[in-house]
């Protein structure tokens, strides 16, 4: 039994660059060390890979990260809870709304505050749109890495439309900071439902278009099928979550299995595949986009049925009062002043709030010492943890497959390095 465990660990070893660059010992086969990145277009950011090659075959890979480390967790410790929110946009910059959500859920859990239904519904709707837009960037760049240029142009066409919706609600295309503790920054504008409806109406056939380009494309199949496969047990041992885990055949989705934001009341499927290779990860993500469209449609129906209502908690100790109240209510003015000069003080304690981001499980761990600033914030970033599976997946494949493999893991280096 012990031997089996040891075998498993060796198989799943995650080397650091130093393990690869040491000179070959006497009697060992000479291999070549290739430095890939950090400035390489297929690394999706600044990821450096130290690759050990035997001919064109990958013997070992050591990811070297940290080039984008900006100390986001440290900076957040010196800001109040409301002001620290803007830092979360900058971790996973392809899914800022998902990061916002994970953070505000953690703070709301600390405070024990409730959120109006209108805000929760808008949150669900927007993070699902975010999932589609994030998957579109993945699809476009993944195809681009394998020399299929047109998919990128198709994908970015719809992504643009989604970013326009984000701009409509928050004023920003990417760094939205739209979800606030207790609800939303402001209400959605009247044009919002029509804009979402227009997108949802075209989306299913647009996804068919992407699939027509790739799903049965012989070159695509050749480059992706049977490459970089991982089984469920190894994926769990290496901490892989999200589409890469579901592609191995294990249906684990926090939206369904440990629901937040009322996901249990929406109808959607959790797409899975079987082989856990690059092609299966592609299939899972494409199927997920279709499911997200369904969730968005349900959320939009609910939003319209709800009608106008509060979009942020009425607890004035957490969310500022509306501007109109400040002009004639002394108490509101005091609340406003206290919130923006001092902030709110959650009770002492620590919580973890996990959500299913487009890349996997994104969790925010916050420690409160009772002051208006978080004592410690930690992000369990899915890209960072998933990256550990890369050496295991890449061993034995060609160096050209490595490019496809990185893209199929969909890492965002801003989130890896934080």
């Amino acid at each position, binding site marked *: 039994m012990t031997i089996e465990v040891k075998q498993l660990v060796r198989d799943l070893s995650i*080397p650091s660059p130093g393990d690869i660059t040491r000179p070959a010992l006497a009697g060992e086969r000479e291999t070549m060390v290739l430095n890939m990145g950090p400035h390489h277009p297929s690394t999706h950011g600044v990821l450096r890979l130290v690759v050990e090659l035997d001919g064109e075959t990958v013997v070992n890979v050591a990811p070297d990260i940290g080039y984008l480390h900006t100390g986001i967790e440290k900076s957040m410790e010196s800001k109040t809870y409301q002001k620290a929110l803007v830092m979360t946009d900058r971790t996973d910059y392809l899914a800022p709304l998902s990061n916002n959500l994970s953070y505000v859920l953690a703070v709301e859990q600390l405070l024990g505050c409730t959120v109006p239904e209108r805000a929760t519904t808008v949150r669900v709707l927007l993070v699902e749109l975010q999932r589609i837009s994030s998957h579109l960037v993945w699809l476009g760049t993944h195809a681009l890495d394998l020399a299929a240029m047109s998919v990128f142009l198709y994908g970015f066409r719809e992504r643009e439309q989604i970013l326009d919706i984000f701009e409509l609600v928050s004023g920003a295309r990417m760094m939205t900071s739209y979800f606030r503790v207790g609800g939303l920054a402001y209400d959605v504008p009247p044009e919002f439902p029509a804009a979402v409806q227009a997108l949802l109406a075209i989306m299913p056939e647009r996804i068919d278009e992407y699939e027509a380009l790739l799903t049965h494309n012989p070159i695509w199949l050749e480059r992706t099928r049977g490459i970089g496969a991982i089984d469920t047990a190894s994926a769990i041992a290496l901490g892989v979550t999200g589409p890469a885990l579901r592609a191995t055949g294990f249906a684990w989705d926090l939206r369904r299995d440990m629901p937040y934001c009322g996901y249990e009341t929406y109808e959607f499927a959790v797409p899975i595949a079987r082989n856990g290779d690059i092609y299966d990860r592609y299939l899972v993500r494409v199927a997920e986009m279709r499911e997200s469209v369904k969730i968005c449609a349900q959320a939009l129906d609910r939003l319209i049925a709800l009608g106008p209502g509060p979009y942020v908690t009425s607890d004035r100790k957490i969310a500022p009062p509306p501007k109109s109240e400040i002009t004639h209510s002394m108490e509101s003015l005091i609340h406003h002043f206290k919130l923006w000069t001092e902030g709110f003080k959650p009770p002492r304690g620590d919580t973890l709030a996990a959500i299913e981001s487009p890349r996997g499980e994104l969790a925010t761990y916050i420690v409160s010492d009772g002051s208006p600033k978080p004592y410690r914030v930690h992000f369990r970033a899915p890209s960072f943890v998933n990256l550990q599976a890369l050496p295991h997946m890449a061993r034995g494949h060609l160096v050209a497959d490595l490019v496809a493999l990185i893209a199929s893991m969909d890492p965002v280096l801003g989130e890896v390095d934080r």
Partner: protein
Amino acid sequence: MDHAAIIARLRAYDPDAVLGDREFRGQLSVAIRPEAIVRIAQFLYDDPELSYQFLENLCAVDYLGRNPRFEVVYHLLSFTRRHRLCLTVGLPEQAPAVASLTAIWPTANYQEREAYDLFGITFVGHPSLERILMPEDWQGHPLRKDVPLGGEEVAFTFNQARIDARKPYARD
């Protein structure tokens, strides 16, 4: 299985390992004696009723001025019971060290390297405990509470030479 039952099962397995438990906002966290962390993690992993098979999160917290100063926080997840359990281990200010969990969960590898890099906590038995986010030649551990924010001067053309002169790497 409710929280009291989980604690009871842990105490039944190793009464000395559990130092205390608390519940905050419905989340259970258990303080573990540092020497027992691998035993307890293995038990939680193997036990068919608990089956915490996934190491969800591993991070460190610096409680400067408190004894023990450092805390390593582990979040374990049970897929079958859909439950999350938090384990904490307190470590002293002088030479904080705890056994690595990489033998049970290879995913602890990067997360332990991160805690080592940013807090200076040694994980005994880790296969390659090196800096991961900060440069190799960095001195100190930036997420510790006694490291000031903004203590690092930003290099521009006008002050580049002055900064390089006091950095060890520039002299190599």
